């Protein structure tokens, strides 16, 4: 009988190992947005009609704002101390650098590299924190070479980042006259979501659940296919 038990145990072990892995992966699927950011993007083109930077404005949600500003000195009208707001956003900028500023720019299947940010401004309006920065591409992208895509999202999907509603969230600044953009709302394929949810924490780095819930903006100019 001990043989039977041993055989049974041997048959069980791979199953058990698989189950342990599944349950660890389960942790990822519990991820869902705990905050949201309304995003506005001004796409900047140089005088040769090349895309060289994105000027992004992030408007944080009221809960995140209240949560982050607790204990910050306020002026008489109830607005928070600008220095404290700057310090908070400076910290955020420092932290998101490692995550490519939660921004992805892609052209012909190649992801653009960023050389840095400039013109960082932070503020507070209508009970919401705001952050504006200009994200510079390492090498500008020629619009004639094909469509350019960008997306602003949190790969962990802890924060939902969508273009602000009500129009005007996207602006092409200095672009050739024949350039148009299209905003594709998130359309997560259930299989992709399930797959992403099953991924391990380490596997999910940079390519987690958030990507499947991200909006994509495509910019096409002239005869570009």
């Amino acid at each position, binding site marked *: 009988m001990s043989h039977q038990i041993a055989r049974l145990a041997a048959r069980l072990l791979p199953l058990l190992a698989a189950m342990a892995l599944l349950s660890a992966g389960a942790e990822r699927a519990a991820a869902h*947005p705990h905050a949201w950011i309304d995003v506005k993007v001004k796409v900047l083109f140089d005088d040769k009609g090349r895309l060289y930077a994105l000027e992004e404005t992030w408007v944080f949600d009221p809960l995140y704002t209240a949560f982050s500003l607790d204990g910050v000195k306020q002026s008489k009208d109830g607005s928070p101390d600008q220095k404290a707001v700057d310090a908070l956003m400076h910290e955020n900028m420092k932290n998101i650098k490692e995550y490519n500023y939660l921004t992805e720019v892609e052209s012909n299947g190649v992801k653009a590299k960023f050389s840095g940010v400039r013109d960082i401004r932070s503020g507070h309006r209508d009970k919401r924190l705001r952050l504006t920065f200009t994200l510079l591409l390492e090498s500008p992208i020629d619009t004639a070479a094909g469509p350019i895509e960008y997306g602003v999202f949190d790969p962990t999907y802890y924060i939902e980042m969508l273009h602000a509603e009500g129009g005007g969230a996207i602006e092409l600044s200095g672009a050739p006259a024949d350039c148009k953009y299209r905003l594709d709302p998130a359309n997560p394929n259930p299989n992709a979501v399930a797959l992403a949810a099953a991924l391990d924490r380490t596997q999910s780095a940079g390519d987690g659940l958030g990507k499947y819930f991200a909006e994509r903006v495509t910019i096409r100019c002239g005869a570009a296919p």
Partner: protein
Amino acid sequence: MRRGTVRLALLALLLLAIPSSSFAQSGAGDRPAAATQQAEATQPGLVARALAAIVSEQRQFHRKLAASLETIRKERSAAAAWGLIVISFLYGVFHAAGPGHGKAILTAYLSTHRERLRRGILLSAAAATVQGLTAILLVFGLTTLAGWAARDTQSAVHWAEQISFVLVAALGGYLVFRAAAGLRRSLAGRAAHAHGPHAHADDGHSHDHCGHTHLPVPDQMDSARDMRAMAGVVLSIGIRPCSGAVLVLAVANLFGIAWAGIAAVFAMSLGTAIAVATLALLVLSARNLVAALVATESRTAVVGGQIVALAGGTIILALGGMLFVGSLGPAHPLGM
């Protein structure tokens, strides 16, 4: 005896199928990460669609919670508070309907250990309540009593999370130790009466009575040790507060409507308890159904049960370890 073994294997297979399908990703887990393209091309399965629906439903809840907190701050009406409570309750249900660490532990424990249905419900409710209480104690203890800024509670949440994962691993270790000790006793008892099972080998499980007094039948298990395992399950799940609950509490406190935050957290706990208890009932009913096919006094069944318990403990131990290692990663870049 052979038939008994086949039944046991069936039992084990079924028990394993329940928790893994409750994690709602049995279809996705076995694909490599590189297969995304392929995954997109195939028709989504029922489980995948359900998971996607839950995730897309969850994304709405945070906005609704924020909006109703804002309404209560402005109006301070019973109707507004009621709105928050209903949303919080649904938040709790949906939060629990998706896969998570609490359900992984509970299903792994319940599917591999003999517990009564009532105990399964009790465990689910206790874990959800402790989770709500942890959030309340943590937020009010740190902000109101200790004077921390709300955003600094995030580091405490992270600590609580890590303690929780260590407790999960400790619980798994305890269950492994307990099952291994039982198994050793069973096998030693069997060796001493080696003639017993062999003589009755062809009698089938229903006549294999010999030696049952030597084997620790789970029903006779020391109830104090059983309580220890149950307390371990409740604590390891409950000590990790839900970050949604912490956020709602902290913000309600800042808005001067702490009572609304507390009511919301209890509503979340109730929703979570109902959803998790439903799952626990499913797991236990299926377990009992299959266990009834195998005579409890059969030696193979007892030893098989101990092997299953050993495996369950190993899963929980591994789960705790993996969650802990995962928690050592960087915090969210935006300080949430």
